């Protein structure tokens, strides 16, 4: 089965400014793919290349097997897009705005459009310029969703939404994925990515540093281990264990970072009188933050038939 989105050594530079460098991505049908990275890392640049709003300096990108620069209209026909930041026509009401974007697509299912308006609790009688940030985001989301696209490309979709509307959005997203559609979303809110996405890519300084399943990312990450003993314990014993780093001693407490299996640490600790043992499982957020100081790219192939389960 061909990938819905595929990029090969995708590079975009803005003169002397870095955009993205050698980005390789493969997103399969039915996946919810999270795109993480700090501000200015290259998330929006990647998305805009996929839409042919900007053209790659080198490399290539295909969506639905169509090269983005060759026939963008054919791609746009099958996608729904929400930019990270956008503005629309101040004088149009919400209803007129939705109507215009529906017209640009040759019409949409009015009943589905109405259901989205109701679910997002949007007052469509107000002018766009009068909307709050959250309501503007709702308009953008409905524009992206109202034609039931095969692929959703959403840049910071929950930005500005209150928690209840966020729940609505995730429910709509789950329904879309359950129908076999695909979602590519960038986000800063790691907890929502953790809950929603099948796979995650982390981009830093324009380069992908990691692409993997959410669980795998979490597994790969280090554990923060804290051992409390009845007496003084030599740190060298633990420093000698493979995968252990950053060992710190304070009174009778040892703290360390453990990458990989934790069994050797448990065995070494058992040689002393151990009062307490705390091992914290890292969140995706900690993994994400750890990537800031570890730029080695690790890209795992997508699991066949991934997605659809969230």
């Amino acid at each position, binding site marked *: 089965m061909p990938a819905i989105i595929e990029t090969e050594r995708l590079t975009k530079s803005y003169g002397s400014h870095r955009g993205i460098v050698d980005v390789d991505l493969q997103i399969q049908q039915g996946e919810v793919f999270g795109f993480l990275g700090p501000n200015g890392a290259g998330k*929006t640049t990647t998305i*805009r290349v996929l*839409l042919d*709003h*900007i*053209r790659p300096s080198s490399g290539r990108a295909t969506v639905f097997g169509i090269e983005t620069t060759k026939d*963008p*209209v*054919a791609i*746009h*026909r099958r*996608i*729904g*897009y929400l*930019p990270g*930041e*956008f*503005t*629309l*026509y101040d*004088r*149009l009401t919400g209803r*007129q705005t939705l*109507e*215009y*974007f529906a*017209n*640009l*697509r*040759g019409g949409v299912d009015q009943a589905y459009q109405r259901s989205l308006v109701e679910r997002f609790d949007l007052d469509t009688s107000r002018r766009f310029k009068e909307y709050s940030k959250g309501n503007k985001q709702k308009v*953008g989301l409905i*524009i992206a969703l109202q034609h039931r696209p095969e692929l959703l490309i959403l840049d910071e979709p929950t930005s500005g939404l209150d928690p209840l509307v966020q729940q609505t959005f995730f429910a709509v997203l789950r329904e879309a994925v359950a129908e076999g559609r695909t979602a590519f979303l960038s986000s800063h809110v790691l907890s929502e990515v953790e809950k929603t996405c099948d796979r995650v890519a982390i981009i830093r300084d324009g380069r992908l540093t990691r692409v993997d399943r959410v669980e795998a990312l979490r597994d790969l990450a280090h554990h923060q281990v804290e051992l409390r003993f009845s007496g003084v314990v030599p740190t060298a014993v633990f420093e000698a264990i493979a995968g252990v780093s950053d060992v710190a001693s304070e009174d009778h407490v040892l703290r360390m970072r453990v990458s990989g299996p934790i069994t050797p640490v448990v065995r070494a600790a058992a040689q002393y009188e151990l009062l307490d043992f705390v091992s914290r499982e890292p969140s995706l957020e900690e993994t994400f933050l750890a990537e800031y100081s570890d730029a080695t790219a690790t890209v795992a192939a997508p699991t066949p038939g991934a997605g659809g389960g969230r």
Partner: protein
Amino acid sequence: MAGELSAPRARDLASRLIGLGGVFGKSLRDLRVAALAIGLVAGLLMAVGGVLVAAQFPDAPSRIQLTLLSVSLPPVMAGLLGDPSHVDRLGGFLSWRIGATIPVLFSIWSIIALSGTLAGEASRGTLEVVLAAPISRRGLAFRKAAAFVVALALAMGIAATLTWWTGVAFAKLPGDEISPSQAFGQFALYGVLIGVAGAVAFALGAFVGRATAAGIAGTVLFAGYLVDGFSGVVPLFERLKPLSWFSLTKLHRPLADSWDWPPVLILGARALALLAVGIVAFGLRDLASPVRLPIPGLPAVTLGTRRPFSRSFGDRLPHALAWGLGDALIGIVFTLASTSFMEAMRAIPALGSMLALLYPGVDYATPGGFLQIGVFSSGTVLFGLSAATAVSGWASDESAGRLDLVLAAPISRVRWMIGSGLGALATSLVVAGLMAAAVWVGSVQVGGDPWQPAIGTLALGLYMAALTGVGIAVAGLWRPGLAGPTVIILTIVFYLLEVFGAALDLPTWVLDLSLNHHMGQPMTGGYDAFGLAACVVLALGGLVLGTWGLRRRDLRG
């Protein structure tokens, strides 16, 4: 955590005066380029006038002839140019011929700047952030108003210096010298006139928001100018004259050795009072919550939600109607005044020869000749500015990021460019159509042939479309933010070349660069087929070029 807070760096005086050291410095920094440009343009206009006098009226006999002709101008012309006083001297001529337009032209900047500095920033949300800093609202408003006053003074100072230099460089006869006090006295008047227009917008901005405040201030400005200029021919205007600040300060013309400071000081005090109203109101009222005036809106059908063409046209329509109605007002006033102009022409045959110097190549034997000067020649500036408004609004689809969403729909860049570009071009029909209708009505009123001048006015629509096309090409090929400024610059350059080019003996090929030079005399029935065809080519060619440009470049994000 035992962090050590670093002491805030002492803000040096320079950055507080013009820089990022405070609200005043930042505001002045934002205004510095515009102030410099306005000072230079106003000063250069005076210098061009100096060159004109040196070239065309170099000796005493020609100056005497100029004086005789200037005092015999019909009321309609005298009103617009001001009462001729000492026009046989360089300073008097500059004050009369050039000075009449400076306060009107640059008041537009004043209105835009002072309506935007608080009301505009408030609606954009900028002030929400700035006012979170420890600064009071009144303090912020005061500093911003003060920065504008300083920027305006700077602009007028530059212009006055250049005017003084014009006197030094181009004086031909005794009395041509311009003293610094004359130059600065004249530009003090212009500064006050320019400032009061902006102050009206500033005072209203806190109540009604930026767009409405700017609209009201613009209306007051142009109405005041027309009332003052046409009070000699329209009895109603004579009664309204005391309300016009142009009438109030009419006797203060230092360049012509006519001094009348009290009205200038009174007007200056009014401007400061208006600024104070704006400052106090800004302190008292909620941020960005203007009172909605009961201005009738356009029917929803005109908004255009079907296609890019209708959307682009619908978005531009309110501005097009505003420009069209303003132009229509000017058109009807000039048309109604054409009868008195013809009477003056019959009574003073020498008037034609003088006008031939000021507006070469126009046949003044018909009312159409007068309309060619009053409506068409100055109309090119108004229609050029309309084109700048249309193309700036159109280009904002990309610069504001709307295009990112629109082009995510299954619509190609080519289709969007052609549809939306034609929508922007179509607004020229609205503007020209309204003015043509007004000229038609005015012509019927005065008993002349209504069709010739009305159809001639439509040629201005082609002129506007041509400049809009150029703007579209610039936006498509390079960047959207360049489109509006390019059209404004072209409008001014074309106009100046047309008005002053021949008098300055510029080479033919330079004169030919101005589109105005190829427009013929449509108001008298004299069409220039090449010029009209050039307009069509520029309009449609610009659209094609812009389309080609946007197709190959990245969208601005």
